[in-house]
């Protein structure tokens, strides 16, 4: 109950953030954003037709009215219909978000787990060649552009010049086997790129934990290395690790998969959002930006609650 109240209070303090995000994105993406009119106007429009379309799209309404309308949509979670296909925005999201999650989650989970594992190995062998080897590897991983990795993996694993084991692009998933078939190459690319950053970050966290007094004490008392690692180091390191993972979530859902989706032609929410930017499909844009902002605030709150759970000294003031 206390937690619930706390969450509610936090959410209320999160409202300025939501307003800020929506205001800025509304200004940029909607008010100054791309214009759908000429896409809808056909090959040979007359000025009157263009006027009609603008009116229907609501472009002729004043800024404040349009923003308030947006706020209303955000509160009721009803974003209307896409301007290009006419499909309900909610059903578009219902269709695309699961695809994006299914695409990105395996890579995200593996990237983090492997990152932690490698970081533990590196930290345990701190200063020795294995550590140096892993850390140089991670700098290399960090230095390769995601785009290059995607292109290279596609050539090597999917194209007929390479191994040709996986589909070049697309997403025709009907069962688990199909899923593995389509998700492997994007996952490998994600893991490859994320691993460098993750390993480095987690190693830093773990090394810091290892230097703590209680760990040194435990070591001095002859605690076995495994126990030391898992019981004394990892569990403390869990806090920054989970924070990092939680804060990645809203971004991973939207922009993390944009490049993958556009390159592999996967109809997830990233691709839909990107298309809606380039074609000016404002209802979708408004929904995605608004939901991301809300998600972000929720993650912030969860994170605070999490701290609270971990450390009773952080009061639920």
């Amino acid at each position, binding site marked *: 109950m206390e937690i619930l109240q706390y969450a509610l209070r936090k959410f209320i303090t999160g409202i300025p953030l939501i307003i800020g995000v929506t205001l800025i994105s509304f200004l940029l993406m909607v008010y100054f954003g791309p214009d759908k009119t*000429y896409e809808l106007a056909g090959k040979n429009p*007359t000025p009157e037709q263009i006027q009609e379309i603008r009116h229907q799209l609501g472009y002729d309404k004043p800024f404040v009215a349009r923003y308030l309308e947006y706020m209303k949509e955000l509160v009721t979670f009803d974003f209307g219909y896409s301007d290009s296909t006419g499909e309900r925005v909610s059903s578009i999201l219902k269709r695309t978000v699961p695809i994006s999650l299914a695409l990105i989650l395996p890579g995200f989970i593996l990237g983090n787990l492997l990152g932690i594992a490698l970081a533990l190995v590196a930290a345990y062998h701190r200063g020795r060649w294995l550590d140096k080897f892993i850390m140089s590897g991670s700098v290399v991983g960090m230095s390769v552009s995601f785009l290059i990795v995607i292109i290279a993996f596609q050539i090597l694993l999917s194209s007929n010049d390479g191994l040709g084991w996986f589909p070049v692009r697309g997403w025709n998933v009907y069962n688990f086997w199909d899923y593995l078939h389509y998700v492997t190459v994007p996952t490998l690319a994600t893991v490859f790129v994320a691993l460098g950053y993750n390993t480095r970050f987690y190693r830093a966290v773990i090394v810091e934990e290892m230097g703590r007094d209680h760990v040194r004490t435990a070591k001095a008392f002859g605690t076995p290395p495994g126990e030391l690692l898992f019981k004394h180091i990892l569990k403390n390191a869990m806090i920054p690790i989970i924070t990092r993972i939680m804060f990645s979530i809203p971004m991973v859902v939207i922009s993390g998969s944009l490049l993958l989706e556009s390159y592999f032609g996967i109809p997830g929410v990233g691709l839909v959002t990107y298309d809606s930017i380039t074609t000016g499909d404002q209802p979708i844009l408004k929904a995605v930006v608004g939901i991301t902002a809300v998600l972000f605030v929720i993650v912030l709150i969860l994170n605070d609650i999490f701290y609270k759970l971990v450390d009773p000294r952080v009061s639920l003031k």
Partner: protein
Amino acid sequence: MTCISRNSPKKSNFPHLQKPLYSLIQQFPIVFRYFMSRRIFGLLILISLLLTGGCSDGPDTNGMKIYRHSLNGSPTSLDPAQSATIYANHVVVNVYDTLYSYKYLTRPYQIKPNLAAALPEVSEDGLTYTIRIKQGVRFIDDPAFPNGKGREVAAADFVYSLKRHFDPETRSQGSWFWAGRIKGMAEWKQAGSNYDQEVEGLRALDRYTIQIILNKPFPQLVHTLAQGYAAIVPREAVEHYGREFSVRPVGSGPFKLQRFDSVGVVLVRNPGYRQEPIDLAYEGYDEALHGKFGIKEIDGRAPPLVDRLEIHFIKESLSRWNSFTKGNEIQYAGIPKELLDDVLAEKKPDIVLKPQYAERYFMTSGYENGFVHTDFNMRDPEIGYNEDKQREEMNHALRCAIRYAFDWEDRNQRFYNNMGFVFPGIIPPVTPEYDPDGPKDALEHNPEKGRKLLAEAGWTADMLPTLTYGGVASVDSRQMFEQFRGWLTKIGYPKEKIVFDSYASFGDYNRAVKKAKIKMVGMGWGLDYPDAENTLQLFYGPNGSPGSNNANFNHPEYNRLYEETAVMQPSPERTRLYRRMNQIVLDACVTISGLSRRQIFLWHKDVVSFPDQSIVGGFHLKYVDVKEDK
């Protein structure tokens, strides 16, 4: 994932990092439980997504005859009133009925009745059309109808479908076909587009008879009735689905929609489609041309010939090719330009596949029904019309000089595999009015002449205006621009005065074009119907921006000729006038034109098909068959 993730900005927010040992040990179970529950929760989400995410139309395709078509673009809307692209038409003409259609195999294209019972009866003055439609044709079953049963298609449905174009709510993209042409339509729209009101020029005389009265003769009317725009929609569905009608087509065509998203569409056989056995002779079957494709076997059978028609939208040509050559994926594709030399044994004059490909695939090729061209924006006083007549003369010389700089042969080689058809002017070779013997000097690449022309007209390098060359920010259009800039420097145009005006989307580019903001506009035009009128209107003065006349060309004689020919039936006289108009455009140096791209279609040998995607788009799909045993 933003790119700065190496540092942990939140690190300083961890007060707990300094907490004493015992408190952490105390808290550990909570941390652990919390962590685990989130992980399990995450896994549960993942699993549930996998179960629900992609399984909406599982592979219940056993024993089904499936044809997997592919296209290099995707439609956004399946509402016939918005079927502006060939991609949309591929779906629209297969789920809806049109009054007329084109014969499967006859070329040049020939109109045939589809839902109409016969060709229209036209009055003496060419103004009144009477069209009778087939009886007993039914819409597919759909919740939009009472009791979910599809009802019979009636003449009133056509009347409704056409009226919709003049209802602003519809957001029609095809109304320009009929705008100003159907008697009383403008007034109907003016009065508020009330469907209960009659339009004088568009009526259902009885349940099966349509009457159209025109303001002035419009010989291309029948062609327009074969377009996706003119497809027949039931009012119940439009009203039932509202805005979502565009993704839930309800028609009476050979197929019905099962799934539609940005990567593809799945159509399945409409079991109630009328049985009309194919008469191959009537459809223009020619043993010499079509015999090798095995089309003969479909004679006498009733379309659609496959149970399930998938159209995959794959923009990247190489991905499409890889999918095509996999064998069990798509069965139809073009050849990516990067691979032409690997796949073709000969390119000119005949296109011949290398044996290893010829063994597995059938191929046809042809020129597109349209062309690409680069227009000068005549509304821009720095390059087009100018109040100062002397400057206008100079601008004319400048435009002609730029045209001399343009190297069609090079453009053709680098971007169109040297297989495009370059022709002077705006009457493309696929139209009957094309003049193969016309003067070709407008295609001449001669930087020397261009340089001289500039000097004679009094241009110096620092006087020359900054040329904005508009385009979408894609690799191709950027490279075309860079090539163009390279050519222009050869006539002495300063490099920094040639600027690429890039737009992140076609819509935004189009807006700039329609607002006449760009000096040079590169565009392509796909013919809606095989009559040069459809391209000549591109330079008709009153069609200026925001209309289709992107060059904003406005020439009194041209305009007069256009109006004169627009009401004429095809005749040698009309052809003569068409060609005269072409010459006017060429003399004015208002466009650098043009090139019709060569298209190559390949399909697997177990598919019986004669593909065509130029006119209308996709009307051939109902005749496609797939052989059972491979």
